[in-house]
């Protein structure tokens, strides 16, 4: 029975690890400026915890294999050195690993969430609602109109509760359901939720952030690869959660300018 356990556990360990190593299912290619750091941090963690995983499982398998030995008169053996060296070793090794991960990791984290956005960022207002994202560009005047929840009306496509009748800044705001951004230009999003919690997640951008009702949360990043990507909601928001998505279109600056003009005409 001990040998069977050892064999089964070894097979499980090898197969599980092989699928990781062969990257059968893996992260999509990164398209952001900060992404490589995250990927690096992930790989570091993958490597160290992978070793820990394989070593512990195989040690377990090996010890179980051996301890099933039924020979007469075999005496039990105490782990060499007893518990103390083991405790010390675990504390030092895991502690060192933690220090290293925290040191590097918190720099990566800070570079995304704790640094101020580039002053030349393109400002886009994002509203998450049950169950869609809407994006607002300030239009020609460069200013966003005020938001009035009581004026929100989906039937007339006034998703942000703008008041164009009284608020001139709101008249040229461009509201679209697709996030178009120019490539290689810093983007500053302001995230607001209309109803409940939502989240902003674009796997290729390596970025995720909750929308919280009552808070306006800034988020900034720079995309480096033109293309069409999916933005999905990762915070349970209700029955349509699974279907809450928008496309992110990263395009060259000229194409973006043209796109914006086209959208402005349709407002």
């Amino acid at each position, binding site marked *: 029975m001990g040998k069977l356990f050892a064999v089964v556990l070894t097979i499980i360990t090898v197969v599980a690890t092989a699928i990781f190593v062969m990257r059968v299912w893996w992260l999509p290619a990164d398209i952001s400026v900060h992404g490589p750091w995250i990927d690096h941090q992930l790989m570091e963690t993958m490597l160290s915890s992978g070793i820990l995983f394989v070593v512990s499982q195989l040690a377990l398998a090996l010890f179980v294999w051996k301890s099933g030995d039924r020979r007469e008169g075999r005496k039990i053996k105490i782990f060499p050195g007893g518990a103390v060296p083991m405790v010390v070793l675990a504390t030092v090794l895991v502690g060192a690993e933690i220090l290293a991960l925290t040191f590097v990791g918190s720099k990566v984290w800070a570079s995304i969430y704790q640094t101020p956005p580039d002053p030349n960022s393109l400002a886009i207002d994002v509203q998450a*609602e*049950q*169950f*869609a*994202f809407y994006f607002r560009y300030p239009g020609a005047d460069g200013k966003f109109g005020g938001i009035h929840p009581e004026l929100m*009306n*989906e*039937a*007339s*496509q006034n*998703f942000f509760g703008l*008041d*164009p*009748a009284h608020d001139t800044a709101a008249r040229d705001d461009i509201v*679209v*359901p*697709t996030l178009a951004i120019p490539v290689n230009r810093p983007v500053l999003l302001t995230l607001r939720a209309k109803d409940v919690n939502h989240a902003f997640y674009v796997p290729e951008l390596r970025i995720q952030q909750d929308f919280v009702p009552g808070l306006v949360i800034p988020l900034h990043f720079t995309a480096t690869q033109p293309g069409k990507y999916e933005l999905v909601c990762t915070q349970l928001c*209700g*029955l*349509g959660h699974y*279907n*809450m*998505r*928008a*496309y992110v279109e990263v395009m060259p600056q000229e194409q973006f300018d043209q796109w914006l003009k086209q959208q402005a005409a*349709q*407002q």
Partner: protein
Amino acid sequence: MRTHSIAVLATVLITGGLARSASIVGAAPPRPPGAAGTISGKVTYTGTPPKMKPIDMAKEPNCVTQHAGAPVLTENVVTGPGNTLRWVLVYISAGDQGSTPATETVRLDQKGCQYIPHVLVLQPNQPLDIYNDDPHSHNIHPLAKLNPEWNRSQPAGAPPIHTKWEQPEFIPVKCNVHPWMHGWHLVVTTSHYAVTGEDGAFTLSGLPAGKYTVTAWQEQFGAQSQDVTISGSETKPVNFVFKATPY
């Protein structure tokens, strides 16, 4: 099925009218044979109405494909050539007589991420069947206040929802999954109603002689009423003009 129920309905009406029985139609006064008046006219606007904006259904690629080439426009204010207004309900709001309760089943479709029709008129307890013709899930959420409110999803392949409204009420209906999907269920107690088409025209026929209040209702501009007296089989012209603002 539908023609069958109409036939049944007609039979019931005729029998009811002739026999003056107190059955299903007993409550409604019998239709005076041969002396029915008609009200007809047009609904228009003055001023600048809001733009009909194209709806970008990007989040539901199925629906984008269905409307490729001709994007769907917002339906809260739909105008036609000659300043006409579409989707206006015109109905007898007071002095109604000769109405018959409807028993035929009304059908609401969800197709291409739109409610078809945008404005659905029913009478209390008239059976309503809701179909999902799209290959993805929809959600129907009638924001009723007098009637019980409900909120239910209809996945692709699920059977139609059989329902009805018991109280007269104008109920906005939305799809929670597709924020742009909006429609109306207008429950009225009269069978004399019409919804304007693109030409803004309407006709209420089969009205016995009497004094009526005719009301036109538009989802954004509200309601207007006019009093009309019908004597015998005449056609009275009635027109409604709404004042439109761009926002």
